[in-house]
């Protein structure tokens, strides 16, 4: 077991805890703030961090992350700068770092070049929201060759597809909580016990639920169906509000969520 994601879930299992995975968009509002926010999140209870690579046309995102992507792009963010940041972060943390990105930003960069840089910078996994299971051939060979986990998404509409998707997902399965796009929601009405039912009998792949989880209470409730939760827009909303001052606010928010989950 060498991937940090596996090590992390193993540790959480022993501690009888659920994973808190948090997201932010790299370069929003600038790369220094992103770096500080990431360290604040780790120090206050995030187990893994998804670093969002801004895309000009993020079709799976709601307004919060759309705006963050625009701020980051307006600030001149690009994948080279993100890899440089990851190199700096790797001197400070040994926790799992993932990239969340649209397929075109990866493809145009050069798929092999991308994964070899992930390997060099010690990125543990990638999540590509617009690459369904059937198109995994775009990245799978290179991801495997360079030891980077590709994490697949399952949706409330996946039905019988969920087992097939889970069989290919490495690290964990990203379970989309609701129909629609990313963004904090007041209420999540999906029946997770039904959605996750097909996975009961198959080889265990940790399931983490994301999309719409906005506070500690929701995180705690959602985590009870799964191995962890993913929070994005709730974090990005704080960054939008406080800009360069956001790291300490992000830190205290993560602490409150962690406490709620560990109660």
């Amino acid at each position, binding site marked *: 077991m060498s991937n940090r994601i596996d090590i992390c879930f193993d540790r959480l299992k022993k501690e009888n805890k659920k994973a808190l995975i948090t997201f932010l968009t790299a370069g929003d509002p600038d790369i220094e703030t992103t770096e500080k926010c990431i360290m604040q999140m780790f120090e206050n209870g995030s187990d893994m961090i998804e670093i969002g690579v801004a895309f000009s046309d993020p079709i799976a995102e709601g307004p919060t992350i759309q705006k963050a992507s625009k701020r980051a792009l307006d600030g001149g963010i690009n994948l080279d700068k993100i890899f440089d940041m990851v190199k700096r972060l790797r001197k400070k943390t040994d926790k799992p770092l993932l990239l969340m990105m649209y397929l075109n*930003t990866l493809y145009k960069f050069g798929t092999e070049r991308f994964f070899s840089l992930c390997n060099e910078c010690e990125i543990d996994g990638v999540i590509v929201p617009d690459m369904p299971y059937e198109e995994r051939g775009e990245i799978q060979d290179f991801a495997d060759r360079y030891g980077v986990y590709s994490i697949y998404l399952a949706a409330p509409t996946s039905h019988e*597809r969920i087992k097939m998707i889970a069989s290919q997902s490495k690290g964990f399965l990203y379970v989309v909580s609701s129909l629609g796009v990313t963004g904090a929601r007041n209420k999540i009405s999906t029946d997770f016990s039904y959605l996750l039912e097909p996975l009961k009998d198959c080889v265990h792949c940790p399931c983490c639920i994301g999309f719409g989880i906005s506070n500690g209470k929701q995180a705690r409730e959602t985590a009870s169906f799964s191995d962890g939760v993913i929070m994005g827009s709730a974090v990005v909303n704080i960054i939008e509000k406080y800009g360069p001052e956001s790291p300490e606010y992000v830190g205290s928010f993560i602490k409150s969520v962690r406490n709620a989950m560990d109660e």
Partner: protein
Amino acid sequence: MDKTGRFGPFGGQYVPETVMTAVHELEEAYNKYKDDEQFKKELSQLYRDYANRPSMLYYAEKMTKDLGGAKVYIKREDLNHTGAHKINNVLGQLLLAKKMGKKRIIAETGAGQHGVATATVCALMGLECEVYMGETDMERQSLNVYRMNLLGAKVTGVSSGTATLKDAINEAFRDWCSNIDTTFYCIGSVMGPHPYPTMVRDFQKVISEEIKRQLAETEGKLPDCVVACVGGGSNAMGAFYDFIGDKSVRLIGAEAAGRGIDTPDHAATIAKGSVGIFHGMKSLFLQNEYGQIDPVYSISAGLDYPGIGPEHAYLHDTGRAEYVDVTDEEAVKAFEYLSKTEGIIPAIESAHAVAAAMKIIPQMDKDQIVVINLSGRGDKDVYAIARYRGVNLDEQ
């Protein structure tokens, strides 16, 4: 095309997992109905009685004499109900939507022609309709916005990104992700995830089938060249498709070069694009080195799109079709020329095809034949052309 919706390396189904089940459901339904005799009968009846098909193939005698080269025929898609080729595709898709039991239809629109066609057929078939349109385009095409409202559709403005066609598509995708069970996404061009590029082409191929038949009747032969404008590429695919196997027929697509392909202000995807994966398909896109989609520009809202349908990328790759670029200025001149010469005001999109054809016609022999696909009529563009020429039509 193979069964996974590929045209060579292009095409595919690159959509979020939430949409995959719906895409498969659509694929299944389309495969079931496309060869169904009853479906085909209903569709051809709608084409004939509602859309006014077959559209005429008009011999443009004055233009032929004036240009002094090949004989010019104009395929009058502008005479279809709603004034463009868009209705062909919408009738097909919404008939399918009805068979699938979908009650709510969403669509994107650039120039507004696809939005108008969708709103029209929704009114006819009693379906709820919401059309996404970039706010920039709503301003350029306010007449079409009002037409859609008249037809009972809700038009939702999109202010994100460049507030044009690609952003309207992004927003329609987001809507689809949220309302997947009830909603049918009626895509307006030969783009998006499989089966859309194939399905939309199949609903448009009636154009080339008719041209072939009509020309066989009047001239007793195939055309030497077919010219059509290309944004996403649906009217061009429709005009080309039945001729792909006829190697003697040159197929020419006219892209929007805006203020020139050496300026940043154009939408010439084939000339300047590179392979990427966006809007559900692998194809050519105008993008930067990091895969960020470029803002594009054309005087024509309908050609103002940073990508192109995957089958065009393939026809370009294999050399079967040629793609040329036409500037705003050339398109406006062709718009005025066709109006004065033949008494036909073309859509500014279609004027790009006219301009491209005007460049090659004089170099061809008099016994050769060029068919221009006149994809739409130009009433909607009169304001924009006046503005381009510095004429103020605003009422006091």
